[in-house]
């Protein structure tokens, strides 16, 4: 369907008790587009990704993936069961700030587990694909290492390979370099950049302005649960229209 965005979210609301973390977010991501989301901590960026993935199902709003409405309807039960979770999760991959690798499994097993258990791929097939993916992120020599023996940057690259093994149509990155020592950031960003070059559709929540400028097709600035403004990276980063964006960028650049 030409013109149909890969992912569209409409009027997403999310509350944690009294606190309304997302107050009506609309976002469209075109096929092959890289959208970078910036904003101060607590602005709802991570929650937005977790809502899209239904790890925190939104209370209100709709999600369309490749034209399909993921919400089962207004009278559907609240929480996860009100959504077409399987359809969505098998097409959207997410990488977390804290990697969340399975510590009792080797790098290779981390990558093969879901394809074997969820997609029913043969061990041989899953392994071949995992080896290819781990080689692609530069870890072909670490297949049989356990996560605790890998550096943070290496762990995060395994996590990227693990998400890619499910053949996602859209990838979400949730501050994937924030828990890393500075010298390890580049290797992870390089892996994401390569994915972008290959045409993967993705939403990247990040504090790396340089990365957003270089790799992002569009930058979105969030604050207090809303999208404040969005635009082409160069435009938004060099000449933000909103005072709040300007203040935030000023603070980040001062670091």
């Amino acid at each position: 369907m030409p013109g149909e965005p890969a992912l569209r979210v409409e009027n997403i609301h999310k509350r944690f008790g009294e606190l309304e973390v997302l107050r009506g977010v609309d976002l469209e991501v075109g096929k092959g587009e890289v959208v970078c989301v910036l904003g101060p901590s607590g602005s709802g960026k991570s929650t937005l990704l977790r809502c899209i993935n239904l790890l925190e199902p939104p209370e209100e709003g709709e999600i369309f993936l490749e034209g399909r409405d993921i919400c089962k309807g207004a009278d559907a039960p609240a929480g996860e069961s009100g959504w077409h979770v399987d359809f969505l999760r098998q097409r959207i991959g997410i990488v977390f700030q804290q990697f969340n690798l399975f510590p009792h499994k080797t790098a290779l097993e981390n990558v093969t587990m879901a394809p074997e258990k969820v997609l029913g791929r043969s061990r041989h097939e899953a392994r071949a694909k995992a080896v290819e993916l781990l080689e692609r992120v530069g870890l072909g020599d670490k297949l049989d290492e356990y996560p605790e023996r890998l550096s943070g940057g290496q762990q995060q690259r395994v996590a990227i390979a693990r998400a890619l093994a499910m053949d996602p149509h859209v990838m979400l990155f949730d501050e994937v370099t924030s828990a890393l020592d500075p010298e390890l950031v580049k290797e992870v960003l390089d892996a994401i950049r390569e994915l972008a070059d290959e045409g993967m559709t993705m939403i990247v929540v990040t504090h790396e302005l340089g990365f957003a400028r270089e790799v992002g097709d569009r930058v979105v600035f969030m604050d207090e649960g809303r999208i404040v403004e969005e635009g082409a990276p160069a435009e938004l980063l060099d000449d933000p229209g909103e005072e709040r964006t300007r203040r935030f960028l000023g603070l980040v650049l001062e670091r």
Partner: protein
Amino acid sequence: MNEILNQYWDFGLMAEHFDEVLDGFWITVQLSIVAGVLALAWGLLLAVLRQLPGKPLLPVRLATIAYIDVFRGVPLLIVILLISGSLPFLPLPEALRIPRWLGKPDTFWYGVMALTITYGAYMAEVYRAGIEAVAPGQTEAARSLGMSHGQAMRNVVLPQAVRKVFAPLLNDFIALMKDTTLVSVIALNEVALVGRDIQSSAFNSSALTLGALMFLAVTLPLARLVDRLIVREQGRFSRTAPRGAA
């Protein structure tokens, strides 16, 4: 002084009855292993039932919690008496009757049931602690990869949880093994009853001392093993922060 020593450490009496006491201890070991394995499995099942997600399964969770609370609170001895005193008179189908083909007396199986019911509840709590100690990010990662709740439990959460609580579970097994002596009240010929029979005919407690020594021969190494496992597990915890993480 000699009187006291002789009352508990009459080596002649110990030697004379060694085989009998050992036979009794062998029954104790069999009872411990059968009930221990069943309690480990039953406790795991209870812990998993307790973690089932969603509103429709709330009754299952509540029933599980009620079971665990009740059998952690009722003395094992009373459970043994409730089972052994009334089970033979209940109108049960033949398939649910005591298995005779294994050649064990009914009292052995009453003991297995009571120990499994009670220690299953204890062990369910230990498993729960282990499940809750697994970082929530693990479940999220598994679920985000498309795994169902059951798949995430089986492949990601439980393997880590069981590893974390292996030492406490072994502790419960030691406690279970000691509690098998309570089954002597329904006349199962395990080590405590054998020792008591000798005690009351010889007016000397040395056979029971011998039984206690046999217990120690098993429980002391197990306790040391528990200590070593705990140290190893703590070592693992201190290394969980990945190298290169800020």
